[in-house]
């Protein structure tokens, strides 16, 4: 009866894909939405410009957890350049549910965090272990 909490969303929430730390990540970033207290750490293992491995840890609401689960599935095996081109709408498409303005930050935290991880990781360069809050605008 509830649009947001479809079975597959709850399924991803209960058993998220790609949950956990990975070995020797080339990029790591901790994103936070201080307004809900959600925190997510994204780790990427990039080889030859392709996201070979990806893992995330952290806590959050069903929407942010499901979006991280779906997003990590989506980017695994993708060239970095394509990942950097992903937009909010792409994440919303992955989720396949209607997100109200108040929950938008929950839905997009994982994408923000992935893209911060990539931005902080100079292409082909080292892997600075960034831990900084991803920009969270307002919770509206």
């Amino acid at each position, binding site marked *: 009866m*509830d649009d947001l909490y479809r079975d597959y969303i709850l399924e991803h929430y209960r058993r998220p894909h790609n949950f956990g730390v990975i070995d020797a990540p080339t990029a790591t970033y901790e994103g936070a939405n201080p307004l*809900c*207290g959600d925190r997510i750490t994204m780790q990427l293992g990039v080889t030859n410009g392709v996201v070979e491995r990806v893992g995330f840890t952290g*806590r959050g609401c069903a929407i942010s957890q499901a979006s991280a689960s779906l997003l990590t599935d989506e980017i695994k095996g993708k060239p970095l350049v394509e990942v950097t081109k992903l937009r909010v709408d792409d994440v919303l498409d992955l989720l396949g549910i209607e997100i109200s303005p108040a929950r938008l930050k929950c839905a997009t935290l994982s994408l923000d965090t992935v893209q911060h991880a990539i931005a902080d990781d100079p292409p082909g360069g080292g892997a600075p272990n960034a831990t900084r809050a991803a920009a969270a605008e307002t919770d509206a």
Partner: protein
Amino acid sequence: MTLTSEPGVADGAVLPAVRAGALDAYAIRDEFPILSREVHGHRVVYLDSASTSQKPRAVIEAVDAFYREYNANVHRGIYEFGERSTNAYERARVEVARFINAPDSHELIFTRNATEAINLVAYSWGRRNIGRGDAIVLTEMEHHANLVPWQILVQERDGDLEFIPITDDGLLRLDVYEVLLRVKPKLVAFTHVSNTLGTINPVREMVDMAHAAGALVLIDGAQAVPHVPVDVQSLGADFYAFSGHKMLAPMGSGALWARRELLEAMPPFLGGGEMIREVHLRRSDFNDIPWKFEAGTPAVADAVGLGAAAQYLRGLGMDHVRDHERDLLAYALDVLPREVPGIELYGPLDVDQRGGVVPFNLPGIHPHDVAQVLDRFGIAVRAGHHCTMPLHERLELAATARASFNVYSTRDDIDALVAGLRQVQTIFEG
């Protein structure tokens, strides 16, 4: 000044909503138009009153009548609407001052909200009185409105902040407070009632301790004025800030009360029309209080609505309001743990030390999800940090859900919450 009467609740009239010395919340509910609406096919169960209250017909109509019948700027026009508008505005001031038993209505300044009231003190009193090394004592349970302005102030003036810690139950550690007072703070600022835990702080005792140590006291009354009888004189407060919109009044209304001597000694805050006596190109003389602190065109209709709200609450009787909300709180604290398996509740257990605020979590379910699912049943609760991030840090909680009451809240609302929470559990555990 003769203040003629504007429409509103008749002085001292007994409302049908008070019967046999107790509130009839069901009758009251009928006076709040929004509560007869439907949300997603359900009756409205509004449990976010600590964030803002709903407004009774008397308040909505006072605002409406202002615009339809006598809208004009105040203190300026020598014409019918201008005189009525000024009258209504100043009469609202008298009404609100009386509601908190201020000794003198000129000590009451209209502001947009509690936040502006506190900032006014931080800017005007603070910049004149806080210097290098001067301390301000706050508590760990403050709303950001009673924390951030002081952070900004002490950063600018090189002062210090000290914090009274809380117990795990959410009570202030008065023993530590006593020690903190030894640093001879210039100001102690704390909330009368916690918006997150509901804790009713022992104001009078804390004021006496502060005064004995030579400090002034600012009380954040945003969660007190709507819910418990407040008498600024018997509390012994120096500054008392509160919001109108949490006490049934329009958005955009709030007030600061302070003792006359303090206000008179304070430099102005905002500059402009109304707050001046005489202006020359390079210097100005300022007006008397309260107008010295009310620059520019005020939110007249909102102030008039605040007056109507104070009158409405006075009609109900704040003792009755408090009793009603304590009863609801006791009922909620009884029924929630019994009916909602695993629910975690926070805050003081003693209902005599606590206002109608019930923070909780369902284990394994994020409060955002809780709120979102409850919305489907027409139930509005708040989820997040409730503008008390440091308190949440202290309690090691990322976020909480919160149900909070007002005069129109009923046991049915709590029963609906219980049923809704069980639905949440079914969805997430199913």
